[in-house]
């Protein structure tokens, strides 16, 4: 999608054995060509082993490894998905309060000929881009821009599709001064008021309140290797274990994977990723996303505005686990 083919792959630690095997296949193929020997049988065998290894690695990722996949620099971003699944798209800017946060993108679009509003957090594709995008950490202006666009969608009867991909809301001094808490809180309440269908998808990492600030919808979808956390494992380890090196344990304990959240009744649907993660085949991931959005939208279309709002209320109303003793 957005990646030029000449860029070298960025490897995660657990991908290294796979990368070694793959480079050996290339070496053997080159050697065979030079010496005019037929090694196609051996190569086929090695390629099968590589595929098997890839499947093994990606089917048994630890929560922290999943987080690495979710944060992979080549993981398709909100704009990548928007461009891949829309027939038309026009980005709109500004919160009408003096800010246009580049960490939140949004605009009007059409998907399968249907006008919709799309918005999400946007991470950068390289260091320079990431600095511009503030690593996908939205400021209060970003949440207000999101709300302004969602209210626009509600007025023009456009379904809202949000894409979550943020390590969290920006924890800077300017953000506190401009009311980061208020900006997120306002969205949480107002998203319950909207009449149009809302589908939220965690495409990368869902970081706490910063993710939830565009995450109140009728449906919550999540890619297989995405994570959604109440606090980053690093921060949680520092606070509860008094040792940020315990991030691995914290990631396990916090239950942050799509499967965990499905079990807890928070998530509606897990979107399968291509073997090797969404970044190994972004177009295939986009196809999966588009199919899921259209299918869920068709279901939500069957309901009246009133029914949808009631459904949205009950969806969140039922989340929580506690004991109720009889008095």
């Amino acid at each position, binding site marked *: 999608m957005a990646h030029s083919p000449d860029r070298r792959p960025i490897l995660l630690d657990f991908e290294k054995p796979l990368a070694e095997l793959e480079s050996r296949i290339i070496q053997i193929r080159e050697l065979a060509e030079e010496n005019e020997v037929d090694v196609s049988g051996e190569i086929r065998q090695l390629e099968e082993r590589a595929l098997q290894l890839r499947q093994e690695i990606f089917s048994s990722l630890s929560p922290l490894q999943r987080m690495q996949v979710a944060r992979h620099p080549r993981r398709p971003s909100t704009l990548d998905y928007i461009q891949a699944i829309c027939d038309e798209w026009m980005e709109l800017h500004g919160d009408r309060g003096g800010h246009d946060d580049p960490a939140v993108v949004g605009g009007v679009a059409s998907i399968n000929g249907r006008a919709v509003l799309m918005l999400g957090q946007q991470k950068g594709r390289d260091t320079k881009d990431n600095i511009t995008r503030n690593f996908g950490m939205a400021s209060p202006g970003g949440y207000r821009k999101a709300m302004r666009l969602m209210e626009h969608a509600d007025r023009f009867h456009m379904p809202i599709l949000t894409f979550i991909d943020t390590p969290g809301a920006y924890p800077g001094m300017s953000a506190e001064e401009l009311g980061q808490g208020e900006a997120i809180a306002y969205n949480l309440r107002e998203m319950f008021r909207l009449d149009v269908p809302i589908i939220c998808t965690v495409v990368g990492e869902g970081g706490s309140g910063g993710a939830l600030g565009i995450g109140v919808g009728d449906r919550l979808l999540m890619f297989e290797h995405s994570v959604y956390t109440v606090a980053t494992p690093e921060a949680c380890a520092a606070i509860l274990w008094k040792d940020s090196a315990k991030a691995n344990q914290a990631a396990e304990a916090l239950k942050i994977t799509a499967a965990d959240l499905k079990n807890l009744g928070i998530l509606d649907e897990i979107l399968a990723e291509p073997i090797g993660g969404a970044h190994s085949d972004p177009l295939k991931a986009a196809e999966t996303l588009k199919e899921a959005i259209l299918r869920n939208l068709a279901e939500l279309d069957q309901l009246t505005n009133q029914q949808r709002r009631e459904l949205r209320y009950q969806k969140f109303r039922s*989340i929580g686990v506690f004991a109720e003793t009889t008095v």
Partner: protein
Amino acid sequence: MSLFDWFANRQKSGPATPEGQEREIADGLWTKCEACGALTYTKDLRSNQMVCLECDHHMRVYSDQRISQLIDANTWVAIDENLHPVDPLKFRDRKSYSDRIRETQEKTRLTDAVQTGIGQIESLPLALGVMDFRFMGGSMGSVVGEKLTRLIERATQQHIPVVIVCASGGARMQEGMLSLMQMAKISGALERHQSHRLLYIPVLTHPTTGGVTASFAMLGDIILAEPKATIGFAGRRVVEQTLREKLPEDFQTSEYLLQHGFVDAIVPRTQLKRSLAQLIRLHQPAAPSSHLVSSFPAIKALSKTALD
């Protein structure tokens, strides 16, 4: 004798020797102000709602005390006292969450970090939630979320205002994403309460941070704060690390939020009940105006004259 002299006398009769002092502080007879160091007879401090008589420092008050400070005597009816936290994630850090719950419950005699109920404030009906910082830093998990949601839903049904006294470090990590989702759940209940044109006033006390700030603490029709409370979204240390520089002295205080437009008024604790009651009275639905009714015959009379 003026109240001031009375207090002054009380102080003179305080513990004379340093050893006696230490012992009587330990006994809870005397309380030392953490802001100015003044020693005050605890009973006097209590009757001043735990506000230092010397420097006006607002010491921490817990939920029982707060309820009796705000609610008219013999009108408080607690609700949902039978909700208890469980350990849905089987969470264990250096200690297991279930042990932490049990120990905290024994120590505080609270079920979780919020008390909710219906009572009267200067004879006006009110749904009140009071968070308690002693219970795991007032953190918000499933029980806090459920109790506040039920409180707000009940207030919507009964058409009465809601006040929530906030004191919280944010979402409770030991319940993972279930805690985060309570922010949305409570906000949804507030949307319904608000759409019925009912009044909601959060009172921000020290400290109000994290997920509580990013949800119900900032959703008031009117937002009050106690003096010098810490109120913010991100922790001060996190902000410092992001900036790599020192922050202004008053950063994330009630006064700072007032200056930046996120708090309506800072109200000293000793005036809180009166201010809340005043606001609730001012926002009561207007009764049919007797002035308008009595003016009808006059109009009739006038039109009759005109017809004649």
